[in-house]
């Protein structure tokens, strides 16, 4: 009785993972089932189409019809002010609208060539909105659980997230940031769950590759950089501009290296997450692409098995990358606020 109760969450977790896998696999097949006939199958194009951002949310094709969700395009230029319309007006890049059109790589360009800012709700922005709203709903209900079960054992969703929150707090943030860790907890907790959720949703069929987009990882890395620089103390700057124990002439070399170090840390954060997630997607899509290159169901069986295996690894990678990004952010902040000893 006791044992079955203890394993129940694991079991439901397993079931949900499995169902995700099944959906991933089946949906990927529906995507390509139609791509096979007619034009030549181009694996590179297919993979990039899935990995990159887009102005429309493409789910699958039925025969010649593409099932897509048109997304709003929002443009701002000094010449035209704010311009907003649905991406379906472009008809998949075939027509121009209000003086704008899609180029072959999916960018919006002005027909007369004027400068403008593109703040459209793309596929990734839509995924960002949904993920963020989901995060807010989940963690507000977790917080509600603490109000309701005050002084009692956690229940439901609260008991699922509590160990993770406590783990991030006690194992990632506390030992790496140091005694003033409380101030950075809200940012680092949000960071961890944002990346983790983004990674997991990215694995869903037809979902956007949010955390595998360099713009997203760039912003997260820049936030960590800003927090590091804002909270950095004298000791930290002293180590950069006047490294202790370094003889005068060597400082000419060391100081630029230290300054590069400030930027290379967030740069590595940005690249690591982007590469890990995008590479995982590319591997899965390539293996599925093999089936359509060889036009063979035997290859299909083999690649299905391998893709299943890699999908399981990707679930692990999703957690590891969230852990690593948060860990390194905590370490960089910790290094910046460390007191002289």
């Amino acid at each position, binding site marked *: 009785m006791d044992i079955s109760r203890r394993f129940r969450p694991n079991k439901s977790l397993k079931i949900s993972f499995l169902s995700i896998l099944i959906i991933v696999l089946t949906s990927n097949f529906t995507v390509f089932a139609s791509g096979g006939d007619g034009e030549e199958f181009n694996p590179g194009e297919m993979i*990039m189409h899935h*990995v*990159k*951002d*887009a*102005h429309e949310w493409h789910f699958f094709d039925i025969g010649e019809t593409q099932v897509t969700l048109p997304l709003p395009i*929002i443009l701002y230029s000094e010449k035209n002010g704010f311009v907003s319309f649905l991406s379906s007006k472009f008809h998949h890049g075939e027509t121009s609208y209000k003086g704008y059109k899609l180029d072959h*790589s*999916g*960018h919006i360009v002005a027909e007369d060539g004027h400068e403008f*800012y*593109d*703040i*459209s*709700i*793309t596929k*990734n*922005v839509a995924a*960002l*909105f949904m993920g*963020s709203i989901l*995060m*807010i709903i989940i*963690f*507000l209900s*977790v*917080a509600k659980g*603490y*109000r309701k079960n*005050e*002084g009692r054992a956690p229940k439901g969703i609260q008991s699922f997230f*509590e160990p993770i*929150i*406590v783990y991030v*707090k006690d194992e990632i943030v506390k030992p790496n940031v140091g005694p003033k860790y*409380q101030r950075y*907890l*809200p*940012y680092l*907790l*949000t960071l961890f769950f*944002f990346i983790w959720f983004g990674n997991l949703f990215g694995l869903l069929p037809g979902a956007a590759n949010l955390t595998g*987009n*360099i*713009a*997203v990882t*760039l*912003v*997260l890395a820049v*936030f960590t950089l800003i927090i590091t620089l804002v909270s950095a103390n004298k000791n930290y700057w002293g180590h950069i501009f006047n490294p202790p124990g370094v003889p005068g002439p060597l400082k000419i070399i060391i100081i630029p290296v230290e300054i590069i170090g400030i930027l290379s840390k967030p740069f590595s954060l940005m690249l690591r997450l982007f590469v890990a997630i*995008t590479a995982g997607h590319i591997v899965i899509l390539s293996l599925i692409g093999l089936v359509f290159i060889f036009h063979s169901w035997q290859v299909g069986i083999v690649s299905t098995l391998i893709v299943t295996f890699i999908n399981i690894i990707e679930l692990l990678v999703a957690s590891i990358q969230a852990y690593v990004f948060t860990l390194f952010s905590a370490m960089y902040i910790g290094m910046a606020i460390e007191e002289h000893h």
Partner: protein
Amino acid sequence: MDLITPGFGLIFWQAVVFLIVVFILGKFAWKPILKSLKDREDSIDEALNEAKNAKEEMAQLKAENEKLLADARLERDQILKDATAAANKIREEAREEAGKISAKMVEDAKTTIQNEKKAALTEVKNQVAELSLLVAEKLIKKNLEEDKAQKALVDDFVKDLNVN
């Protein structure tokens, strides 16, 4: 929409949305959650400390009790010892007293006996004297009557005297 060139729109939305999420979660989720976790940790710590204190108090109480018991035991022993000593002393005293009394009684008895003896002797002497006087008187009286008879009489008296 290139792979390695970050798009402006996504950077903009990511920054805005992420800041909003950090703000909302920080204010309405992380703050109460972390507070509850801290409260719980504190209450567990407190309970553990209380248990520890109670245990220490118990141990102290037990030690105190044992000390009290030991003290009581010591006192009891002392009292017993004292009592025994007192009893012995009393017994000794009683024996001495008894000895003295009996010695005195013996002494008194001896003195009485001595006195009685003296008195008896004196009496005997007196009676002997009286008797002697009587004998002498009768002798003299008889001597005057008859010599022979006188002698027989004296013999008779002496014979009586020996018997007494």
